[in-house]
């Protein structure tokens, strides 16, 4: 799919919000009843009443299974409900809230027992109110010690919204998946293609993990929400050591909104074998050059998505700055409004209304955020310039209103978080053209260049290739990147590809980032000087004869 066509997608975002309040959900009814009672009665004589109360019930259903060395080692399933009560004292301009997000939690009944539920809410409300009173007093005292008043209000009003979505259910063929995991994690010793180095595979595990969340929310603005999401993921993790002791591993998987969206058993096996083979190639790969390299590096879509998720996304999520400072937000882009943060051929949109992309169900999609604000596409970066922050109901300077990005982690308060981030190039190159451009640079500079397929944590390369001017690729190991920072993505990207990669995460909030390949002009590749652990002190048990 060409990136250009993505620009049409925001038109799909209109949706009907005006469903009549459906009070036939016993959970929402109980929550509304207790909220009404507390709104009327909750005050310590002589102290302030809350100006805002929100109740959220989270129904969490999880399933996890792990197999290691071809045997199941863990299978857990849990189903639990938690209520979270948020109470705000003061007013919209200045209230009891802190940057942390304040609330009280209680376990809630799995039984649909309204009395037990209201009792749990009552208990949590009392706790939240007392904490809010204390926090308000402390915060007002602290504010008096600063010369500079806050640059924005603490909270913003929102229209009431009613949205009742169908409940999300956990659907997974558990026995089938257990069989798949057992088979995949045992491939290192059962598959002829990899058996020759089975003794060098120190760990081999496969897992599947499902999180299904249904959220019930009511607040004193009159909002009534019932919405949810599901995240399904499977992972392979294989690894061991190179002959010099360096720890090496491959770990990857698929993420989807339904079980059907996960990779097939055949695909899982194929990927496991590929991981095992690339692990073995890594073991025998030469170390990266000991002297630093500064020059062109081609990032795959997978690697680019990681780069954006670390360098860009958190910095366009508007977090309230520390008290007493005149900053707009926290992070790298607090004073970058309307200034370039990317090259002029790149734009970034956050569009949670987009539910699928090239057949992938998108985890970051939603209609109404966790603070009851409907979401519309937000042009975050237009032709390289930062034009909007993603923001919830806690304003920052120049952004007094929510744009529907108040999103909450499990049991947490809402914070400004991205939904579906799309990085689009106005001038996308085909994969071949991009590679040709990389080789042209190598020839022009008369040296080898680099191309990276996947990254591990901290933006460290996992599969990094040295590419000679004639196109020969050599896998190398033991490298880290340096100077891969905001400056690099602002002024160091030469070109972007046209094959978007969909990266998804379930935790802490479901989020999707869709990014193309990127060609950087000047990234530092250097040798990681990590401690090398001793090789195994004795050999693993002898493999059974096949």
């Amino acid at each position, binding site marked *: 799919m060409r990136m250009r066509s993505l620009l049409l997608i925001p038109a799909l975002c209109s949706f009907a919000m005006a469903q009549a309040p459906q009070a036939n959900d016993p959970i929402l009814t109980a929550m509304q009843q207790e909220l009404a009672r507390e709104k009327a009665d909750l005050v310590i004589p002589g102290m302030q009443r809350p100006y805002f109360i929100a109740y959220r019930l989270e129904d969490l259903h999880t399933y996890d299974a792990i197999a290691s060395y071809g045997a*199941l080692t*863990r299978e857990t399933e849990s189903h*639990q409900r938690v209520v979270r009560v948020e109470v705000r004292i003061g007013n919209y301009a200045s209230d009891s809230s802190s940057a942390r997000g304040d609330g009280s939690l209680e376990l809630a009944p799995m*039984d649909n027992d309204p009395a037990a539920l209201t009792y749990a809410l009552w208990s949590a409300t009392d706790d939240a109110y007392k904490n809010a009173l204390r926090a308000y007093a402390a915060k007002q005292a602290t504010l008096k010690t600063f010369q500079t008043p806050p640059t924005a209000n603490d909270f913003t009003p929102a229209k009431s919204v009613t949205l009742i979505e169908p409940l999300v259910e956990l659907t997974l063929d558990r026995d089938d998946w257990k069989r798949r995991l057992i088979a995949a994690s045992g491939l290192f010793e059962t598959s002829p293609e990899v058996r020759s180095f089975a003794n060098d595979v120190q760990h081999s595990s496969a897992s599947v993990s499902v999180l299904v969340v249904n959220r019930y929310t009511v607040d004193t603005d009159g909002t009534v929400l019932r919405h949810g999401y599901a995240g399904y993921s499977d992972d392979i993790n294989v690894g061991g050591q190179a002959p010099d002791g360096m720890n090496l591993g491959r770990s990857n998987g698929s993420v989807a909104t339904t079980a059907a969206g996960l990779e097939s058993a055949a695909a899982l096996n194929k990927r496991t074998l590929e991981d095992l083979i690339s692990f073995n190639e890594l073991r025998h790969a030469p170390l990266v050059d000991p002297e630093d390299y500064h020059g062109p590096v081609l990032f795959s879509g997978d690697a680019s998505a990681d780069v954006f998720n670390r360098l860009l996304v958190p910095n366009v999520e508007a977090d309230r700055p520390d008290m007493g400072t005149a900053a707009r937000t926290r992070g790298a882009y607090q004073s970058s409004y309307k200034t370039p943060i990317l090259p002029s051929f790149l734009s970034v949109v956050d569009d949670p209304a987009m539910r699928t992309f090239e057949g992938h169900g998108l985890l970051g999609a939603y209609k109404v955020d966790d603070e009851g604000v409907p979401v519309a596409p937000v042009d975050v970066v237009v032709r390289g310039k930062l034009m909007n922050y993603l923001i919830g109901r806690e304003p920052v300077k120049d952004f007094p209103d929510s744009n529907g990005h108040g999103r909450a982690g499990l049991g947490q308060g809402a914070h400004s978080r991205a939904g579906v981030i799309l990085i689009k190039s106005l001038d996308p190159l085909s994969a071949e053209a991009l590679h040709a451009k990389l080789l042209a640079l190598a020839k022009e500079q008369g040296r080898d260049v680099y191309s990276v397929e996947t990254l591990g944590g901290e933006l460290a390369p996992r599969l990094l290739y040295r590419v000679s001017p004639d196109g020969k690729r050599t896998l190398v190991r033991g490298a880290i990147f340096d100077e891969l920072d905001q400056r690099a993505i602002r002024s160091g990207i030469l070109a972007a590809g046209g094959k978007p990669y969909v990266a998804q995460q379930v935790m802490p909030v479901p989020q999707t980032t869709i990014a193309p390949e990127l060609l950087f002009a000047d990234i530092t590749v250097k040798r990681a000087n990590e401690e090398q652990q001793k090789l195994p002190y004795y050999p693993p*048990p002898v493999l059974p004869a096949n």
Partner: protein
Amino acid sequence: MSLRVAVFACAGSLVCGVAAAQTVPTQSSTSSVVQEPVLMQAMDTELHRAMADLGSASEPVASSNEKSAEKAPQKPYFLSYSAADAESVTITAQYGAIVNSNQSHDRTADVQVRIGTPELDNTHDTHRASALTTMSLPLTDDREAIERTLWFTTNRGYGKALDALEKVKTEQQVRAREEDRSPDFSRQQPVVDILPTEPPLTVDRAAWEARLRQISGIFRGYPDIFYDTVVLQATHETDYFVSSEGSKVAAPNHVARLIVEARTRAADGMDMFRDETFEADSAGHLPAQAEVMTKIEALAKGLNDLRTAPITEPYNGPAILSGRAAAVFFHEVLGHRLEGQRQRGDEEGETFTKLLGKAILPSFLSVADDPTLKTYDGHPLSGHYLFDDEGQPAQRVQLVQDGVLQTFLMSRLPVAGFSESNGHGRAQTGKMPTGRQGNLIVTSAKTVSDTKLRQMLKAEARKQGKTYGLYFEDISSGFAVTTRRSPQAFQVIPLVVYRVYVDGRPDELVRGVSIVGTPQAALSSIVATDDHPEVFNGLCGAESGTVPVSAVAPAMLVSSIETQRQAQGTSRPPIVPPPPLDDVPSTSTPNTTGTPKGGR
């Protein structure tokens, strides 16, 4: 997990002839009867392979391209594998509704590696944990996967142990001579005893969920009790242990526990709680619903009354500790201080270390710890096990005889004067075992009836010029299940206390005192006891994790106990009255006792 309950009890004789079931063991210590489980075969094979290969001259995998071949690699002198194979059901109810209901199956391996010599090894002093590495094992009897997991874990543990031993050796060079120069590991005879494994756990979850709803529903009748939790835990576990010394033990245990906890807050902000634990070898043997309901109804009422009870003044005078309170008191104040490892080390208080052979209690009191007892006077005991977590057989240990301190609770960590374990090395899975209590039993040679004990209390109070004595019905400690912290030595907080007036007025419930003073002083001022010991079952947390324990003691009259105002809680009680709770959930369980209905 550390609890082991078996199908027989092998009771030791107790001082004062307190009745305990004397049963003949039904299982002899031979492994030939029982087929060795696959898990155990795999553990045994892999352990011997590791002992043969680790540190052998031809270091097979690691290429020693480091500077100067550093002597020969070190062989471990001890290696043990213990595996806990546990199936559990946990159901929790609050406010009359189920909040979760889960079933689980876990298999966990604790691999222990010791390098150096028993005199000085990698566990020395603060490095105890360096011997232990924990890993999940395959849930099925896949021998190859089990062996490979054990290899991975052992290899990691060996590296950790090597590192720790280097540190130990360096520290020995720079530190002053240690006061207690005991070895780090005792020498013991290997034990082979393979008992049948546990059958699969079966719990009628729907029926128990209904019971828990009903029990928890009691608290709906007491809206000021703002927190309650009722938990059923049922576990079938088999523990396997193999060691390089030749020990091979498989021991099953099954336990079911019903735990109830409730909290309230007085108008002045003081928090108060009560808890109750019912214990049996299986969920089916827990007390009938009617009995539980009666007890919890009384607990709820008592806690509710306590909320409005007057606060008592600081007091220094005579008091009675109920059997239950005395049991908790002895567990906390005496039992923990007799754990062997507390007698050595730079950080230990060593309260009783130098009192060996001396009187620490009045001569009419004796104390034993006897994990071999499964029941006491018909009551199940939580602290029962057959083998401790170092594979040592459980033993009855006479800690105090006629008031004189005899010995300590020993794991395989020796202390001056005690070179061997006495079967009290206990730990939660994933922790290094230390000397811990099992069933602590206090016996008395000077018993009187309850009536007489009360008369003695009043007489003593009168003699000391007091208008009342105190009666401690229940006291709390680190026993509470929700409190996972290790017990603070003297933090015993009385939960239910009455003034017993000398002039014959009715007893008056009071609140807000804590017991202070040194343990020796408190223990030596015990004057007499009653004649029917009470059992307290609970979970005890300390360095080696949470283990189930019991304490048994008669009620005691103490001539002088010092109390002070309890410092706690300044939060107001809830602002808004509780929501209406008049729809107490109906239950289908037949044997209901009267449940008060209605909120306020």
